[in-house]
């Protein structure tokens, strides 16, 4: 009884204070950020959602043990410190005692254990489970310590734990089976309302362990048309927006009162060849194609100049100078020689691409078509609705595919799935050899950072020379904001966690 009264009294006091602050200090009053994006989140379960928007939303609500900063370094989140054992088979986390869920309960080792057990449980259907298969058991010696015992040395698991798919949810919610509906996390914001494909309302979490926020909350609107998003920014109806289409992004700096944030992304644009089908099974044909395309020209035309030529490794810590890679400068003579050597005299193939995903997919396919025509290859373009494309892609049912594949901060989770003997997506890539497989294994177990870079660069060189896919470019992730918004730091992962630093005037 006393407790209730105190709380009422205190909240009354808080309201009074808030009112007086509002009256006297209106200019510095925190405000609500009006945000827009074209694609809405598809669900609220942090462990199973994989759509870009879902991850971006959930990163504001939930927290993983660790997270990646804008330079892709692993930094504390729920865990304040962590340590690998010598043999990289034990990983120990110490939790931040200040970390609390938005219902006021502290985040404990039991919550961490329950969360990872939920991910590993096949009934949960978490795609991210594949990143954590090396976890043999989880010990919780005390409330603030979690020990992961691994079956094999697994260094990249730490980066995987920095993803929101490894978010920590309350053990009580997991038990109640309500993780996908309640969105109860320990992150900087609390989700008040979600109307799918229409809007989200987030309010600042006053108990967030990460400190105080510059805004009261975020109102997210779903505006499916990016031209409309730009118009909305222009008219002052939106403060901050996610932009997908480079064409729309390039218009932002020309608008008075609008600013564009660009961050080079980890995702890569690629022309996937299917080495399971003739004549792409012939390495000389694949190499000829690699020499025939002009990667920079594709960026200049289809991507409106927005992007950079890249090899398989897109993360700055691992990336090599693209010009050092096999045939990365267009060389039509060499391409024709290789074609002649292969004994294949021109051929016709179908390339699939998804409508609007990425926005320039159709343009990219058309430029590739024109470039490959130079060495006698006729491409038929087949555009597909995204979902149909995904289905076809997963079955590996294509000659070639124009794709934009997601990147990871570490090469292992990024390519293990495609180019190793037990990769889940081996039937998509249809390519593996002993060199790739053993290098990948070596990279997983190696703890020395410099040695890891060497291993994966060797992997990259071999992969580019074998050319099962033709890596083209990385593109940027964009956000646009009005002048009254400041403090946003974009990240290569595309995360909107930088909104925690944002203020609105």
């Amino acid at each position, binding site marked *: 009884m006393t407790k209730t009264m105190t709380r009422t009294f205190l909240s009354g006091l808080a309201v009074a204070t808030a009112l007086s602050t509002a009256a006297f200090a209106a200019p510095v009053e925190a405000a609500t950020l009006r945000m827009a994006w074209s694609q809405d989140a598809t*669900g609220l379960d942090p462990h199973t959602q994989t759509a870009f928007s879902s991850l971006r939303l959930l990163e504001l609500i939930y927290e993983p043990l660790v997270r990646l900063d804008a330079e892709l370094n692993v930094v504390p989140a729920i865990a304040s410190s962590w340590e690998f054992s010598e043999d990289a088979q034990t990983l120990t986390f110490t939790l931040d005692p200040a970390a609390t869920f938005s219902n006021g309960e502290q985040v404990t080792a039991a919550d961490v254990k329950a969360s990872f057990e939920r991910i590993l449980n096949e009934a949960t259907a978490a*795609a991210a489970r594949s990143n954590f298969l090396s976890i043999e058991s989880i010990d919780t010696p005390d409330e603030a310590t979690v020990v992961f015992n691994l079956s094999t040395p697994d260094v990249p698991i730490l980066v995987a734990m920095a993803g929101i798919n490894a978010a920590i949810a309350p053990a009580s919610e997991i038990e109640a089976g309500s993780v996908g509906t309640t969105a109860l996390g320990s992150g900087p914001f609390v989700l008040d309302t979600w109307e799918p494909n229409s809007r989200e309302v987030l309010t600042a979490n006053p108990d967030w362990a990460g400190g105080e926020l510059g805004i009261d909350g975020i109102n997210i609107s779903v*505006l499916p048309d990016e031209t409309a998003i730009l118009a*909305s920014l222009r008219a002052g109806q939106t403060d901050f927006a996610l932009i997908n289409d480079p064409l729309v992004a390039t218009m932002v700096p020309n608008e008075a009162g609008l600013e564009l944030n660009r961050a080079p992304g980890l995702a890569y644009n690629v022309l996937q060849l299917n080495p399971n089908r003739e004549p792409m099974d012939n390495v000389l044909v694949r190499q000829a194609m690699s020499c025939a395309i002009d990667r920079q020209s594709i960026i200049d035309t289809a991507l409106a100049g927005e992007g950079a030529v890249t090899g398989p490794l897109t993360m700055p810590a691992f990336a090599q100078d693209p010009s050092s890679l096999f045939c990365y400068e267009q060389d039509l003579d060499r391409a024709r020689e290789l074609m002649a050597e292969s004994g294949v005299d021109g051929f016709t193939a179908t390339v699939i691409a998804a409508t609007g995903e990425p926005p320039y997919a159709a343009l990219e396919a058309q430029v590739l078509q024109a470039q490959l025509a130079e060495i006698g290859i006729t491409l038929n373009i087949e555009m597909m609705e995204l*979902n149909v494309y*995904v289905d076809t892609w*997963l079955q590996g049912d294509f000659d070639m595919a124009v794709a934009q594949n997601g990147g990871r901060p570490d090469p292992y989770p990024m390519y293990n799935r495609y180019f190793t003997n037990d990769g889940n*997506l081996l039937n998509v890539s249809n390519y593996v050899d002993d060199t790739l497989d053993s290098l990948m294994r070596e990279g997983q177990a190696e703890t020395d950072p410099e040695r890891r870079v060497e291993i994966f660069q060797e992997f990259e060189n071999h992969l580019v020379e074998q050319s099962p896919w033709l890596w083209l470019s990385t593109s940027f992730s964009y956000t646009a904001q009005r002048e009254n918004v400041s403090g946003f730091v974009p990240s290569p992962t595309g995360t909107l966690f930088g909104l925690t630093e944002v203020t609105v005037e």
Partner: protein
Amino acid sequence: MNYLAQRLLTFPLILLGVSVLVFVSIRMIPGSQITAMLGTEAGMLTAAQREALAAYFGIDQPVWTQYFRWLAGLFQGDLGVSTIYARPVLNVILERFPLTLQLALMSMTIALCIGLPLGVFAATRNERPSDLIVRILAMLGQSTPNFVIGILLIYFLSVFFGIVPAMGTFTPLTVDPLASFGQLFWPAVTLGFAFAASVTRISRSAMLDVLSDDYIRTARSKGASSMSVIWRHALPNALIPVVTLSGVEFGYLLGGAVIVEQIFALPGLGRLVLDAITQRDYALVQGTVLFIAFNFLIVNLLVDLAYAALDPRIRIGGRK
């Protein structure tokens, strides 16, 4: 009355046909809710994980089992549960419907307010320059794709006037009538443009027909003023084709305006069903399409009844 009963009896039959068609076709599209939710990450699932998801989405059963289960629910007024919205399909639809209804009504009002006077005016000026101008405008209006109008409207409003209609969410009429009207005004103009053009043309030609009829000539010879002839005697008869056209067009609009809702970011029925198809929310697609078809049938029935009410000479049912 016999006719009405007969028509009403065919409704369940037609709706059943629509439901089978939508049920089968939505499942024939490659991809499922699993790929819609997970994208290419769906490839990382193990067989057991895949089964767990299929069971969750209710797509692990044979198609006919799924259909009869859904049909059984339908008879109890249950359209199933949307997996995206995690709520009963009917609730989601009824939440989106007011916007679509209001948009359709506003578009029709705009179309009638502009089209009817213009059409009557043009008819009275038959073959004179002003008539020609109206006709050309109407023709052009009918020939302009509404997505072109929508895109240009948003662009010019934001660049030259610094405004855009409120986007993303809908303010219902009951909450704030002014904001509600303001929000839907420009989308209604976009939709009403071609609609008004059709109304202009049909009311002009109907008016011409009526004006050449004997009884109008009689009224005129009896000395009725030309204004009163037009508004009191001719217009009511000329209204019949206008009512038919507006009714049919209204029926289509109630199905949601997919492209215009997309451009103006309006959460109406058109986008609801488009998103549901993209996200393979089967129950939602089925429910919404059925709902739209039902509205369409009802509106068409009302149009036919209005037709009969306006023109007693027509024996209902014998028209077709």
